[in-house]
């Protein structure tokens, strides 16, 4: 077991409670910092300054926001379904919280090291869909409901490619233990062998987190914040907490799975401080990339989102799994993994580009889609 967070007092239930407390604390700090970081990064990208007033260089802006939220009144619409409305933020937050449990940060630093860690994360992370639906439906608000439904459709769809990419890595490493997967990358990180998986992982992760360009469920200009529209104060902060926690967890997981985690490029067992630095750097890289995407791309339409998932992402990831299986079963050289995965990545990119260009040339398509949707909404 890990020395840093070992069996404190040797009592199981006390140990569990302490661990939960630690997670909560770490997550809170991380989230506060991340909100600040995002605002700063995006501001820079957009050639603004971002928060500067609170604290040095605006560093305490997040803390101030958090304090404000905690102190704000917790409003609830009178027609809302009380229990559902009030439990929804927890239902969103708890799964993220639970995924945090299984992510190893260094060889010894982590809450729990599960032999089925990857599977556990995949399973648990799917649960927060229910939270969004609860929020959307419990608010008794049309926009909230619309957002909740959008969130459900999007997250269920993108869970499939996400699981498939993770599975690709697990196949190459032939383990579901995240630490084992990470430590197999002491020479070459899996982003080399599975470039397609890495790209799809980021895309699907964005969709899972409802982040731009897949922020359709919470789009302010369409559904004014979606499921969270009726929330305020501490409950709204839970949504925020969940969003940025999952951003952090997913980035850490991506760093572990694709970027060599706390090991690469310093051999099989670098010292502990180096491991921590490595993982922080790589996680930060992932997070920054996601911020970068947010600052760059416009929002997609929901039909484009769905088509992209079912017509591009799932086929190519399934194909990648198939080729992985071939290479692993017949013990072909590892380079073929890169060849297949890269070829698929190139193909998928090219196909997407062609489709995008063609769609742009046919504005009537969009009109037709809108007409059909209207027709459907009228119950035709």
């Amino acid at each position, binding site marked *: 077991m890990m020395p840093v967070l070992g069996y404190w007092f040797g009592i199981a239930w006390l140990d569990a409670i302490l661990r939960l407390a630690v997670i909560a604390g770490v997550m809170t700090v991380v989230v506060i910092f991340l909100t600040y970081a995002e605002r700063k990064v995006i501001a820079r990208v957009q050639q603004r300054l971002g928060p500067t007033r609170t604290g040095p260089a605006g560093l305490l802006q997040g803390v101030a926001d958090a304090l404000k939220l905690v102190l704000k009144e917790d409003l609830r619409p009178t027609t809302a379904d009380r*229990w559902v409305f009030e439990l929804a933020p927890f239902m969103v937050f708890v799964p993220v919280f639970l995924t945090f449990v299984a992510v190893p940060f260094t060889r010894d630093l982590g809450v729990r090291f599960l032999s089925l860690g990857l599977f556990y994360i995949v399973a648990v992370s*799917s649960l927060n869909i229910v939270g969004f639906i609860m929020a959307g439906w419990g608010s008794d608000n049309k926009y909230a409901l619309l957002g909740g439904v959008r969130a459900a459709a999007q997250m269920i769809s993108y869970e499939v490619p996400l699981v498939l990419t993770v599975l690709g890595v697990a196949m190459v490493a032939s383990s579901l233990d995240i630490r084992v997967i990470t430590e197999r990358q002491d020479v070459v990180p899996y982003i080399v062998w599975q470039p397609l998986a890495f790209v799809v992982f980021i895309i699907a992760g964005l969709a899972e987190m409802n982040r731009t360009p897949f922020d359709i469920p919470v789009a302010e200009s369409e559904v004014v914040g979606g499921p969270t529209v009726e929330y305020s104060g501490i409950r709204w902060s839970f949504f925020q907490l969940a969003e940025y926690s999952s951003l952090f967890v997913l980035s850490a997981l991506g760093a572990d799975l694709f970027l060599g985690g706390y090991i690469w490029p310093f051999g099989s067992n670098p010292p502990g401080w180096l491991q921590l630095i490595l993982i922080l750097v790589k996680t930060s890289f992932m997070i920054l990339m996601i911020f970068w995407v947010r600052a760059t791309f416009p929002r997609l339409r929901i039909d484009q989102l769905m088509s992209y998932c079912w017509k591009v992402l799932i086929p190519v990831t399934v194909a990648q799994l198939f080729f992985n299986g071939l290479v692993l079963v017949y013990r072909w050289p590892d380079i073929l993994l890169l060849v297949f995965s890269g070829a698929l990545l190139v193909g998928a990119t090219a196909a997407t580009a062609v489709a995008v260009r063609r769609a742009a040339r046919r504005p009537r398509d969009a009109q037709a889609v809108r007409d059909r949707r209207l027709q459907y909404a009228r119950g035709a």
Partner: protein
Amino acid sequence: MSVEQWVFYVLAAIAVGGAAVTVFARDIVRAALGLIVALLMTAGVFVLLSAEVIGLVQLLVYGGAVAILILFALMITRAREVTYRLDGPQKPLALLAGATLAAAIGVAVVGTVFPTNTDHINPVGFVEMSTALFQTYAVPFEVASLVLLVALVGAIIIARQEERQ
């Protein structure tokens, strides 16, 4: 009484409560939420029974499945029906049947002497289970996947709106 047993009681109680909500709730979304509670707690029971894989599969499958169920419920339940009585006229009879069934199962369980030694759990390892699933029962597994595929295709065909309508 060990901690495990207490945990089991708590999980089971919550699961039964969720199930009760599922079948007694007047609101279909609440029923669905009760269902997911029941299913998650049952997954917990699976983990307690050292069948972690099945527990996780349960989470994975039913998290999405229940969400889909709610979506459909919202989609095809007319607004006035959301608060409409969900139960049919044969409620008393159904109650009687359910109670009798529970009693019968209880009597059967209590009255049965289970043939093998059941005083402690024998965990099934992940590898062991995978071997069973992919080697011993490879053909049934393939058939099951085929069933799934056929069901998927069938569902698409059934649900697809005719183009010329």
